[in-house]
């Protein structure tokens, strides 16, 4: 692949850019909508678009994990959380706090710094996305051949998180 500037996109670039646009736009909706349930739904869109981006990047297994865990589990959990805390249905004005300007400044500044840094460092670097997608078998081999120990440690972490969550959410009357 020849050296190309950022302003001469290929087809893959275009697809990725579109997906990224969807992800960013819906992420902006997540942090700005006035309806809490809508936020969760925009989150689904955003995370799904990110999963598409993974697919374009040939990270097939990660994409499916994204869909399964994030879209399937995490968002459902968040929905349960809203339900249990009696989140208001419909628009409400008090979802955004008072330090909006400070937050905006911090976020924009952070994004600007990181963005300038990234473009400055990798502005003309190309990656090869024409290779074989890393399917479940490839990732399985990597995980269980090279990353067994972190994997096991992570499983213990998950278990303790599970126990912790149960212990925390148990109501006092049952204790």
């Amino acid at each position, binding site marked *: 692949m020849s050296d190309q500037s950022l302003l001469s996109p290929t087809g893959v670039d275009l697809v990725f850019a579109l997906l990224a646009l969807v992800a960013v736009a819906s992420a902006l909706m997540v942090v700005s909508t006035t309806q809490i349930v809508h936020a969760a739904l925009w989150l689904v869109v955003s995370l799904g678009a990110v999963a598409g981006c993974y697919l374009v990047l040939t990270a097939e297994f990660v994409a499916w994990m994204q869909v399964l865990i994030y879209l399937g589990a995490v968002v459902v959990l968040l929905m349960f959380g809203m339900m249990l805390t009696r989140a208001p249905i419909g628009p409400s004005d008090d979802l955004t*706090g008072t*330090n909006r300007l*400070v*937050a905006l*400044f*911090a976020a924009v*500044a*952070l994004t600007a*710094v990181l963005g300038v*840094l990234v473009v400055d460092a990798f502005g003309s670097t190309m990656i090869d996305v024409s290779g074989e997608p890393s399917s479940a078998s490839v990732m399985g081999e990597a995980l269980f051949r090279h990353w067994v120990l972190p994997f096991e440690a992570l499983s213990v972490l998950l278990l303790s998180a599970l126990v912790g969550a149960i212990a925390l959410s148990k109501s006092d009357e049952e204790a």
Partner: protein
Amino acid sequence: MTAPLVMVVLPAVAAVVGLLLGGMSRAAAATIAVAGPLAALVVAALLAAEQPWDAPIVDAGFHGVLQPFPAATVVDGLAVSVALMVCFVATLVQIYSIGYMKDEPRYSSYAAFISLFTAAMLAVVVAGDLLFLVVGWEVMGLCSYLLIGQNWEQHEARRAAVKAFLVTKVGDIGFIVGVVVLIGTTGTTLIPNAVQAASSDSTVATVASGLILLGVLGKSAQFPLHAWLPDAMAGPSPVSALIHAATMVAAGVYVVARLYPMFLASPEVLTAMAVIACITMLGAAVIALVQSDMKRVLAWSTVSQLAYMVAALAVGSRDAAVFHLLSHAFFKALLFLAAGAVIHAVGSSALRDTGGLRQSMPVTFMTMSIGLLALVGVFPLSGFFSKESVLVAAEHAAEGDEVVAPWVGWLVLVVAVVTIAVTAAYALRLWMLTWVGPRRGEARPIHETPPVMYVPLVLLAVPTLLFGFTALDVGALPTWIQANATQPLATPGALTPGLLTIALSVTALLVGVGVGLRGRWSSGIGDGRSFLARGLGVDAAYDWLAVRPLLVLVRWVTEFDSGVIQRTVSGVGVGTVASGRQLQRTQRGDVQRYVSAALTALIVAVVITLVAVAT
């Protein structure tokens, strides 16, 4: 451990045991108290019997926890004779204290401190190492403070204790610096080696001995550092006996004797010593003449007699000084213990409360009379011979036989003879005011003290009577004192009285007695407030020269402290509190604001770093 070290350690152990077992019965405490010095006395006697000793220096530095303790000891005639005297007097003082301190609630610690005092003095006596010497020297200073302040309920006792400590410490600064100079220039801490090295270099000898002389002036209460000794009378009488005879004041003279070759190498220091001794000798004797308190008379007489020893050292006769040190120890301990007995019986040490006690206290009367006769120097008591030896030494110096100039010898000779007259006068005054004439003070039945108190008096009277005859046998005492000495000093035989000095001293004595008999003492005892009675105004001089400037300085420092330092400190406090109040407003418990602030700070830091890296 070698025998000299054992001798030092035994009373120290008694002291530690006495302090640790403070709650034990009086009998047990008394037993331990007497056992310590007595055991040391036995060791000293064994050491003396062993003569001739084969090795003068026993370097037995034993290894302590951190580093070897410099416990080298010297065994020679000088050390052993003084050690014998110290142990003897200390034992008797301890025995006497059993009776004298019968009603003292703090007897246990008192006796322990006396034992410790004795141990420290023995350490100074046998020390063969300069550091060992300093340790003993300083422990002694501490013990003097503790014992003078034994009755610390009394304001006077606390004052006297602090004064003794501070005044001797002034001298000790010079002493320590002198020892450091000595060690630094000679490169050794062993006393004989250091002294030998220093005496070959007159500059080193002058500097080191001059500095050490300061410490000696403090410890041996010589002008101008003598003012603590009369005030030390606030301590119990046995303590006075110990300080004046065996331990504290003797240490100063002893150290000069120990380092004597170095002093001999410096005629300048010897001359200074002679002048100081003459001022002290005559001045203290005159002051003693007008004191209104029995113990203060004796205290000033100690200052005067110590000056005799210093004078003897100054005119080049170490043996005369040590001879007078020993005989003075016996009769002065005797005098103080006898004075203690009188105080015990009368309940006061003021001379206006005594008088006519001869019949009711025969033993004390006899022994104190012997002591006073020895102090005056009446033949054949020990004081006669030892004072004669000083006069003989001065005569030698006057004839130009010594390192000092002849005029120094003449000065010492004349002043010493005049002082004999004054001594006779104040001793006679003390004797008459105490024992003859009408009884003054409150009328109460006077009884002789119990045996535990008068037996030590009798035991001390024996050497007071007989010790002088050691000088008659030509060379016996000098030979003994110089036995095994590392550097032989004077020719033996110098202690025998000469005809000229006998004639001079007897004349002076008769003049003194004449003055003493003519004085109408009982009519003008005084209240001890006159210029003379207050010690020639030395305390006032201290006040003007040291205390008041110091107080002004202290006021400045205090003002600086409260004006600048205090304000700075409290300003920091106030500023911190105020800024804390302001900062408190940011602590609103809002996590998101915290995170915003942290993140903004992080971004700023990153940007600064990036810019710095890029440029």
